[in-house]
Each structure stands twice: as structure tokens, then as C-alpha cells.
């Protein structure tokens, strides 16, 4: 069947509607965020293929069955990669159904981690190894905690202090994405300042290899009820298979989660999955009455007295300087 590639498609309301309908027909949900789109269209204007670039992630890749075969898919995907490079975005990622893994191998993507439902790929075979080589290493057994710290509270401090007393060296990975109220650099700096006195604590940017819930795309997952579990299994599989062995991480620390069902579910999957790879999971009882969301609410009310009870001095100074 004849098709014509269209690069840099403008998703006008009308075109967007057609695109959404096409994707829906292919079992995908459009959830926004397309910075650049390549489509394949028929002579009559029917959409036969689609792919979009969203930041440094390739998304919404679908080809009408009538065109399937490498040529059409390659046209879409290479169009996205070439445009990303033109824009100076050279480190690319994608999430796909396991069935499409081979297609993306052919355009230079390598699998970082795969579960039954989803495969996480990067356009570099050595990206993860390069990130790992930038992390300080220790001969001894280490522990790890992965935290967002939006912003750093006395609760985070308590968790880190407790964990650091149980292992010789502790990695604190701060989630590197900018979808939180406090920017990444800001969060990282506050964690560093707030743990300066703990000599065996190493605060490290998580890089792209600890998948943030905020950036995990769900548009290709049919089983919407299990999106959270699918996300958790993928993120934890990557951690257990590739990150923990390279850094000699034998323990992972996490706060207990009394409120949020999603985080609780994540912790449950962690407790099930990590021990299979020799990583022991320790839940640390959360300090009552402290949470980053209470801090953000107190900032909105300009309530310094409440803040004093929630955050360490280093965070308080920053908040007063920056937000008052």
C-alpha cells in the first residue's frame, strides 16, 4: 500500500482528533506531550503510521497492519531520531511492548531492562555503564535509598540517618526529573546540605536509570488497572539486575507508606522482587506527621512556624530565601 511520510506534523485540533482515533485503533492512548511528530498518510489523507518525540523519549509509535514490514516503521522512527539529533537531544529512550524490541534494535536502541509487559531501551549500549562509572564505588557492602525529596524534610533526614547507621556506606539517589515543584538541582542541593555531617552518605543524581513515576508513559498499556505494578516491576528490575550488582548494594531502604496506596504497592513489589537478587529490603517507620506535601502547603500559607517543625535548618533557610 502506498504511503507518504509527513515530518513535523502540526497537531491542529482536527489533526489531533484523527491522530487520537488512529492511535486508539492501534490500542494506544494519546496522553499529550508530543514535541515533534512523524506520520505516514495514504493518498486520501488517512493516517497509516505515527510516532512522536516527547522530550528525550520516543512515543506513540504505531504502524497500520497493512504497512507492517520494516520499511514503514523505520521511516517513522528514523525521522524522530534524526530530528532529535538536529535538536541536540542525543540521549534517547523509549518504552515499548516486548514484541517490538527487535524493531528498535535495528535503529540502534539497546534494552536496559525488560519485564513480561514492557521493555525499556536506550540508544546507547554503554549509557548505563558510563553513568555507573561516575558513581563512587566501595569495597564494602553498601545500601541505597531512592528519594524525590520535594523538598528535603526532617522525615527524609530521619530515614537517611537510620539507614546510614545500618550500613558502612549509603547511596542516596535523588530522582533526576523536573516534574516536581522543587527543581532537580534544588532538591539535590538540599539533600546534600541536609546530610553533610553524615560522612558515609553519598548523594547521587539518579540519572535516567531510575525511572520516575512522573515520566513513565502508560499510553501503550492496555491493562490500566495494573499500570502502577508494571511501572514498579520495570524500575525495580533495572535496579536489581544492573545497578545493585555494579555498586555492591545489598540493602535497599524505604519509608513505610501509611497514606498513598500507589507507593505502598511499589514497596510491596520491592519486597517481593529485590530479595530474589540478593538485595534485602528494610522499611523504616515513617516519622509521624512529617511529609513533603505538608511542607509545600505550609509554604503556600507562608507558615514559618509549621515549617520549622517539618524541615531542617538548611531547607528552611533555602525556602525563606527563595519563596518568601
Amino acid at each position, binding site marked *: 500500500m502506498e504511503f507518504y511520510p509527513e515530518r513535523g506534523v502540526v497537531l491542529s485540533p482536527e489533526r489531533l482528533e484523527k491522530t487520537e482515533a488512529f492511535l486508539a485503533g492501534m490500542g494506544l492512548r494519546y496522553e499529550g506531550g508530543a514535541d515533534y511528530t512523524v506520520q505516514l498518510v495514504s493518498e486520501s489523507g488517512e493516517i497509516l503510521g505515527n510516532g512522536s518525540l516527547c522530550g528525550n523519549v520516543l512515543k506513540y509509535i504505531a504502524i497500520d497492519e497493512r504497512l507492517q514490514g520494516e520499511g514503514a516503521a523505520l521511516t517513522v522512527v528514523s525521522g524522530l531520531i534524526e530530528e532529535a539529533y538536529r535538536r541536540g537531544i542525543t540521549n534517547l529512550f523509549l518504552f515499548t511492548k516486548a514484541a517490538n524490541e527487535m524493531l528498535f534494535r535495528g535503529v540502534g536502541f539497546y534494552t536496559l531492562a525488560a519485564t513480561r509487559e514492557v521493555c525499556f531501551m536506550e540508544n*546507547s549500549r554503554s549509557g548505563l555503564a558510563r553513568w555507573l562509572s561516575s558513581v563512587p564505588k566501595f569495597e564494602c557492602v553498601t545500601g541505597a535509598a531512592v528519594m524525590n525529596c520535594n523538598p528535603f524534610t526532617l522525615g527524609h533526614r530521619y530515614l537517611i540517618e537510620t539507614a546510614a547507621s545500618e550500613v558502612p556506606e549509603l547511596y542516596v539517589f535523588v530522582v533526576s526529573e523536573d516534574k516536581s515543584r522543587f527543581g532537580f538541582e534544588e532538591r539535590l542541593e538540599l539533600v546534600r546540605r541536609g546530610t553533610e555531617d553524615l560522612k558515609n552518605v553519598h548523594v547521587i543524581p539518579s540519572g535516567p536509570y531510575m525511572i520516575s513515576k512522573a515520566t513513565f508513559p502508560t499510553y501503550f498499556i492496555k491493562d490500566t488497572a495494573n499500570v502502577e505494578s508494571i511501572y514498579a516491576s520495570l524500575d525495580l528490575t533495572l535496579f536489581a539486575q544492573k545497578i545493585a550488582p555494579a555498586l555492591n548494594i545489598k540493602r535497599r531502604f524505604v519509608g513505610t507508606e501509611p497514606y498513598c496506596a500507589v507507593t505502598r504497592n511499589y514497596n510491596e513489589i520491592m519486597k517481593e522482587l529485590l530479595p530474589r537478587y540478593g538485595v534485602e529490603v528494610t522499611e523504616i517507620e515513617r516519622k509521624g506527621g512529617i511529609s513533603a506535601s505538608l511542607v509545600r502547603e505550609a509554604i503556600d500559607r507562608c507558615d514559618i512556624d509549621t515549617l520549622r517543625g517539618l524541615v531542617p535548618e538548611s531547607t528552611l533557610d533555602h525556602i525563606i530565601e527563595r519563596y518568601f
Partner: protein
Amino acid sequence: MEIKKTGVAGTMESSDIIVRIEPKETEGIELELESAVMQQYGRQIEKVIRETLSELGVTKAYVNATDKGALDCTVAARTQAAAYRAAESTDFVWKFGGVK
């Protein structure tokens, strides 16, 4: 030639190759190659990329290449272009009369 930033050249069209060169702190060229004709020509493509970089005096770089069946002259040209871009260099010496 010193690699200062990421440089890319080429496309994923048939008979072309896309080459990405990135800075590396330690000595050595670390090459990852994916090719439609890996079995038959993988080694030859790698040889051309390494020789081209060596001629340019590039000794420290990460190189990622996705080949779609490019001829040697194309592989060399794309590697050169990516290296010059990555080195932010424009003093390219045109070799008339083809590649040796």
C-alpha cells in the same frame, strides 16, 4: 583532534550510516555498532570507523553507529563529519580525487 561535545552525521536511509561521537575522559575509542549487515560487514565497518578516527587524531571518544548498508566511503565520510562537529572544528581539508 579533541572531542568536545556530541556530534552526529548521517541518516538511517538505506545505504547510509548514522554516526554519533561523544566525549570520553579516558584514552581509547569505545565503539558500538548496529548494522543491517552485521554478519558480513560488521568488522569492515568497524575498521573503517577506527581508521578514520585515527587519521583525524581522535583517541578518546564514545562512538555509536547504526548502519543501513553503507559503502566504506560513506562510512568514512559520516565518521569524519561527526568527528568535526564533535570537535567544533571547521578546518576540514578537502581531499579531491576520492578517498584513498
